[in-house]
């Protein structure tokens, strides 16, 4: 009787641990996917404007390249959060 209860408790604990790991993985996935979409959205607008500006004047290439990569920070933060969640 006691061993059966003990076994049931152990299974429950294992299940809980496993589901915790799963939830962490889902949380990490949401963190990275949300920020990735946000960064892509931001870069979409900046990128098209940047290409337009470069077509008008080649000298601004350095500046617009810089402006285009600015929203990358969003996804980097997402990745940092995801990594901290998992490890």
């Amino acid at each position, binding site marked *: 009787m006691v061993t059966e209860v003990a076994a049931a408790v152990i299974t429950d604990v294992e299940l809980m641990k496993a589901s915790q790991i799963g939830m962490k993985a889902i949380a990490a996935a949401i963190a990275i996917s949300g920020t990735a979409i946000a960064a892509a959205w931001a870069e979409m607008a900046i990128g098209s404007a940047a290409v337009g500006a470069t077509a008008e004047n080649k000298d601004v290439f350095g500046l617009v390249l810089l402006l285009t990569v600015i929203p990358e920070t969003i996804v980097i933060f997402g990745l940092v959060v995801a990594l901290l969640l998992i*490890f």
Partner: protein
Amino acid sequence: MLTPRQMSRLLIVASRDQLDPVIRELYRSHLFHIEDFVVEGREGYDGFSIGKPLPGAGEVSTDLVKVRTIENAFLIRPSEIEPTGKHLNAELRSKIEQELPAIEHELGELTGRRSRLEVTLKDCEQKIAEILPFTEIPMDMEMYRGYAGLTVLAGYVSKEVNIPEPSEVYNSAGKARRFIVAVFKNDRRSDVDRVLLEATFQAVTIPVESGMPRARIDAYKEQIAKVKAEIDQINRRLDEIRDRHREFLVACEEILKADIERAEAPLRFATIGQTFVAEGWVPKNRAASLKDALNGATGGKIFVTELTVGEHDPVPVEYDNPSFARPSQLLMDTYSRPKYNELDPTIMVSIVFPIFFGLILGDVGYGILLLVMCLGLRKFIKGEEGQQLIAVLRNASISSIFFGVLYSEFLGFPMPWPYLLPSRHLNIGAHATGHGPNIPGLMMMAIWIGIVHITLGRILSMVNHSRQDHGSHRVKAVLANAGWILMIWGILFLIWSMFPMPLMPDLTGLPPVVMGLNVTAVIGIAALVVGLICIVRESALEIVELPSIFSHALSYSRIVAVGLSSVAIAMVVNYIAIGMLISPQLENITLVGVIFIVMGVLVFLVGHALNTALGILGGGLHSLRLHYVEFFTKFYKGGGRKYSPFGLNRRFTED
């Protein structure tokens, strides 16, 4: 080193008859950055006017236009040609007289013939297109015309047409569009038109030809082949001429360009009566030698003096960097050239950029691939900027190899020695074992780098403000930057006193002194308060920038994040290629297994090629961004004018 090259402002005054020797000497020395004379608004230049070009400028311009026209026709670009030797000026000038008209004549004749042939070619193709619909009707082309009482119509209809009037109709087969030819009496025209209109008739011009359509098309095709062969022959002949005269033409352009620049130089000088005045900039250490040279060239009939450089003078900026840092000037120019009285951070960029790149890519295999690529491309990429870019990439790839050794990585595989930096090896695949990456360690490393880099930026800002500003504003600006440094380190001290963190001093165990806070926390709070006061004293609006302390420091975590993603891609490629495709098949080789192995090798090659490209982009762009956004915004403004001395770097000619 940390500042642009020191410049002197020279004023040259001489009589007009000395214009030629002075301009020659200035051009030869290639040191004098001419300050263009503008008639209006110059103090002390009342009554002066712009000089007139030297005689002969017009003819030289005509010759230069000729040379450039020929170069354009031959698609010759001087920047893409490596000089094999130098042409002598005198020889060239006599050759320009004799050979240039001959080349121009031959080129004109050949290109003229070619364009005539091209017109014929187009013509033939057009005719074939016109005849093509008639090929389905077996009738001589002559039969379509020459009737007095009959009308012939040809064109496309959307459905089969039955003309009730007495007529002859050829219908070709076709589902969507049918080609028809209708022959009918002239007086039935309106009735036929109505029927055709119902079938959405689109008329086609009947070509004026004689003979069967097929035979005509063949004849035109034959003609096209002949014309094409002739055009090829002309192109070969043009290539021959181009190869023979290429160097001569670029040398001509160089010498003529020099002549024109010299002849038009007086347009940039101020003149009054029989005197001319030229103002410009010379590197300080070369000013004396230029003065002597000018005195020598004119026999002393010249007055040259150094003017004082005012604080707001638009001094042209020439970099003054050791040779290893020179390629990084490209990265500086992409952002903006430093101003004359500003610190030039090129040398820091040249050291830190490769370090960031190496920390991000950090793989011996990719580093070697990049290095080989750079060494290979060096021969093919022409032009100064291209060479600089290659040199920057080369330094970055060497740094990648170095950090690859420290990270113990080779194309995502671990190397036989332990890692010296926090591990980036991920557990990828079902059977992967190991510690996994040391994320907290890596993060702290990146943030430390960020804190040091940002602090350095603030210190440089203090130096810049102390050099550029005056009075109370100077003190405030310097103190504000010190305030930012205090804020950063104050926050750090506070964190240390409360939380133990990897790679950071653990000061949580110190005994509390005030309100349960230990001595580190008190120092931190004091630093925060003093820092805030310093910042607010300069500008209260700066308070909205306070969160940037965190966001900028955290932004350096991209060094880890981008690097880890590159490691992950490499390891996934290895796992798919070797773990899933190749190694299971090696145990028992079958025909299908060989296909799997080939696929595995393909995945390996394509995957790593892609990851190398991503590595260059990721490593390059992100380390550049850390410089431009996080580092430069602290102290650097830029906007300096480029120092471009009067004269030419002669590549193809010599005196």
